[in-house]
């Protein structure tokens, strides 16, 4: 009898023990190697991975952990209180939202890169696409990003711009949209489906056509008067536990080395 009672109580006590009490601040943390977490837009995957490596080489003892996802997803994570130090957004909107919600200091945000849209198609080019106007041919399978994702928003802006271009066929936007078979939730989803040849064409950032994709994709340029230029802002988060290193990372992205790497991956320096 007593045994059962004791066991039950022990289990309950153990469970309550999981609630942290007001313990004195631990000092062991300072000895452990520093780690900073960078929330970065999916389109920064390749370039930031390289910048992160170079930053770690330049600052021994510091580890950079990346969380690459659609910017809208990253913003949700910040809202839910994810512990992180730096936020690199693929558009101004989510950075502005972060400022007004108090996650980021208004003075701290900087535009560190610009990006442009491009049309991609598989190398085999099953849709026989040569010029932009071909995208309104009936029967094509086009994949674009959902309007909730920054690149999807820019794609919509680009389509709105096409109405002013008299060289394009009539109802280009409507016919283009009639060809859309999927609104992907991430720019990489668009790239993958075109690389696999499941879609005839897609619209992505110029910078997504790098590395492996470069050899497997063909491109159709979007003229600069129709194109939408995306601005990428970066900032440290107010909740950062490592403000010094977080700021050092931001500075590194803005330095000649960081800007050079971004340029190599197809970004336009601001």
């Amino acid at each position: 009898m007593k045994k059962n009672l004791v066991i039950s109580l022990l289990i309950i006590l153990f469970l309550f023990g999981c609630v942290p009490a007001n313990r004195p601040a631990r000092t062991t943390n300072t000895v452990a190697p520093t780690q900073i977490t960078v929330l970065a837009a999916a389109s920064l995957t390749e370039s930031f991975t390289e910048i992160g490596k170079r930053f770690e080489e330049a600052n021994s003892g510091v580890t950079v952990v990346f969380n690459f996802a659609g910017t809208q997803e990253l913003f949700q994570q910040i809202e839910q209180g994810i512990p992180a130090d730096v936020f690199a957004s693929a558009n101004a909107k989510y950075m502005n939202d972060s400022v007004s919600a108090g996650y980021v200091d208004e003075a701290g945000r900087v535009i560190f890169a610009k990006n442009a849209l491009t049309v991609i198609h598989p190398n085999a080019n099953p849709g026989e696409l040569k010029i932009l106007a071909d995208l309104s041919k009936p029967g094509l399978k086009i994949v674009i990003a959902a309007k909730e994702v920054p690149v999807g928003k820019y794609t919509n802006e680009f389509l709105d711009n096409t109405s002013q271009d008299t060289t394009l066929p009539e109802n280009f936007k409507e016919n283009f949209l009639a060809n859309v078979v999927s609104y992907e939730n991430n720019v990489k989803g668009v790239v993958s489906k075109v690389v696999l040849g499941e879609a005839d064409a897609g619209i992505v950032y110029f910078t997504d056509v790098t590395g492996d994709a470069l050899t497997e994709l063909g491109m159709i340029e979007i003229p600069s008067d129709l194109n939408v230029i995306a601005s990428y802002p970066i900032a440290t988060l107010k909740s950062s536990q490592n403000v010094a290193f977080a700021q050092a990372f931001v500075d590194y992205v803005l330095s000649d080395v960081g800007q050079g790497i971004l340029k190599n991956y197809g970004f336009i320096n601001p």
Partner: protein
Amino acid sequence: MAIYSIENNELQGIEIPDKKRSGERFFGLWKLTAFPMLLFIALPLLALFLRVSPATLLENISKTQILNALQVSFSSALISTILAIILGMPVALLLSRKKGDVFRIVDTLIDLPTVLPPAVAGIALLMTFGRNGLVGVYLSDWGITIPFTRVAVIMAQLFVAGPLFVRAASIGLSAVDPELKQAAALDGANRWQTFSMVIVPMAWTSIVSGAVMTWARALGEFGATIIFAGNFPGRTQTMPLAIYLGFETDMNIALVLSVILIIISFLSMIVVKGVLHKHVRYY
């Protein structure tokens, strides 16, 4: 405690040692240790319901995006469940015989989709039925392309949820007493008659509960669908896809659809448990 008092009545006049009695009383305390796990599961579900007021529910339920997602989800889950029954029954029968190497291979194969991450299922389906896939290459010669269509949604659901039906049905089928089959054969029943008039009625409850489990799992399918079928409102955007995109933009849509999905899943489970309960009482 009702059980305790009944026990006391039954044992009236018999002397029970004190030690045992108080032991019983304290023994009941262990039940408290089940509380944290139950709370852990119930609380998040409750939190969803608390965030959605009846007004929000009514206001959002008629939104096109929600209606589209409901329509896509219900129609495709219904078809994939029917297909799971038609195509899964022979497999279930094969498994219910439980003999030989074939059994072991089929048995493992049918469990694989249940343990694989759904994203793997989606990529596998693309590699098979995509335009450049193993089979898809020949299909596209015939002018048939599967990705980004309702068919792709159904296939993704069948792949991920179908095995649940096969598993449940095979357990039911193998529980039928072989002597009954022999008796039916002795009475002059052929194989089909034995199957349709003896085995299926005996295993009916497992077949129904398997179908309901498949239907509920198909409704919740996400990973394979987004990879294989893409996301197109009204065509391939199922409830889970709409919840995911809604989570990033329109929280109300995500919450309302989540609540609907929980209610449907809960009701499905109740049906399954009800059927199983009858099953236990009847036999």
